C-alpha cells in the first residue's frame, strides 16, 4: 500500500500543466501543488460525483489534460459513470482511483467487498481502453509517466493506506484554503474563460 501524500508528491513531478481535481486526496494536494490556480480542491460537494464532474471538465476543455483522484467509496456510489466515460472517450482524461478499502472519513468502515473487488477489471469491462493497477510507490514512480503519456481515458487503480478520521466533522482540521466556488473562479481566470 502507498502513502497518499508520498504518491501525490511523485505525481506532482510529472503533472505538467494538467488541471487536477484532487478529490479525497485534496488535503494533501493543497500542500504539494505548485499550481493552485489549475487545481479544483472541491472538498466533498456530494459523494459519488467526483468522476462525473471531472469528466464534464474534460469534455468541455478538450485541449487541457484533466487528472482526477477518485476514491473507492465514490466509485462504488457512482459506478455507472465508468460506462459514460468509456463511451465519451475523453482523450484528455486521467482517472486515478485511491483505494483505501474503507470509508475513512466516517471512521474506517469497509466499503462493500473491499478485499476482493477488482476495480481495474470493472473499468476495463465498462470500456476503458487503458487500465492499470499499482500498490507500491516504486512501481508508481515508473508507471505515472507512462500513464500520462497515453491517450485517455486511462483508469489507474492505486492501493493506498487508510487515513481514518474519527473526530466529529466540526472538530476536524480545515484543510481547504479556498471555497469550491473560488477555486472554480480561479481556474477560469487562469484559463481565460470569460464569465457569462
Amino acid at each position: 500500500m502507498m502513502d497518499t501524500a508520498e504518491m501525490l508528491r511523485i505525481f506532482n513531478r510529472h503533472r505538467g500543466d494538467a488541471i487536477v481535481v484532487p478529490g479525497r486526496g485534496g488535503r494533501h494536494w493543497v500542500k504539494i501543488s505548485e499550481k493552485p490556480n489549475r487545481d479544483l480542491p472541491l472538498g466533498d460537494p456530494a459523494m459519488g460525483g467526483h468522476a462525473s464532474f471531472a469528466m464534464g471538465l474534460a469534455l468541455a476543455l478538450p485541449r487541457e489534460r484533466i487528472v482526477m483522484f477518485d476514491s473507492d467509496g465514490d466509485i462504488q456510489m457512482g459506478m455507472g459513470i465508468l460506462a459514460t466515460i468509456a463511451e465519451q472517450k475523453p482523450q484528455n482524461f486521467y482517472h486515478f482511483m485511491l483505494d483505501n478499502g474503507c470509508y475513512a472519513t466516517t471512521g474506517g468502515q469497509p466499503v462493500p467487498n473491499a478485499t476482493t473487488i477488482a476495480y481495474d477489471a470493472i473499468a476495463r469491462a465498462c470500456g476503458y481502453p487503458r487500465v492499470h493497477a499499482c500498490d507500491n510507490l516504486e512501481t508508481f514512480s515508473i508507471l505515472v509517466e507512462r500513464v500520462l503519456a497515453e491517450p485517455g481515458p486511462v483508469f489507474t487503480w492505486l492501493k493506498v493506506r487508510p487515513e481514518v478520521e474519527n473526530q466529529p466533522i466540526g472538530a476536524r482540521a480545515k484543510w481547504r484554503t479556498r471555497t469550491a466556488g473560488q477555486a472554480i473562479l480561479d481556474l477560469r481566470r487562469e484559463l481565460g474563460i470569460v464569465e457569462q
Partner: protein
Amino acid sequence: MHAHPRVPGVHIVSDTQKAGLSPETVLAEMKKNGVTHVVWLPDSETNWLFLLMQAEPSLTLVGVNREGLAFSAAAGIAAAGKKPLILIQNTGLMESGDSLRGWAIGLNIPVVLMVGYRGWTRTGVSSDTAATYTERFLDAFGVRYYQVEGDTDAPRISIAFEEAMKTKRPVAVLVADEYHGFT
C-alpha cells in the same frame, strides 16, 4: 413498433394542446440559449427529442445511467465555461437530491433542468406518485420551475435559462406532456 393507442373522445383538449411541445421547438430553444452539452437519461416524456438532438452538430450528448450523475457532470461542464442542459425524468430528479444540493446549488451552477413530468394530468387526477411529489421536491430545494405543455409555452424555456444565469442556480422546466408520454 406502433403508436401509443389513444381512445377518441377521452381527452378533451384544445388544438394548441393537441399540438404539444414539438422537438423542433425545444431544440430551437436550446440553440437560442447557447446549450453546448445535453446531459441526459432517456424518459418517456421527452424521448421524442433524441433523434433530433443526435443530429444536431452543435450539441454533445452525454448519456448517464443514474440521474444524480447528471448534476455533477453538468457542474464540471459549467465550471469549464460551457453551457449544459440536464434532461431527465421527475423520478430521477427525486433520486438526485444530494447531487442537486451539492453539485448544482452548492457550486452555484446556472443550469436548466428539463424534467419529464411523469404522471401529470390536466385534470390533476393521477395515480402516479411521481407527479405527486415533483413540485414539492423542487420547492423543498428552493428550485424554481416553469411548466411547458405546448409550443406556445416555449418562451418559458428561455425565461428559465435567463433566470438560471442571473441567479447562478438551477432552474427547472417541467415538461408536462400528457399525451406523448406513457402516463
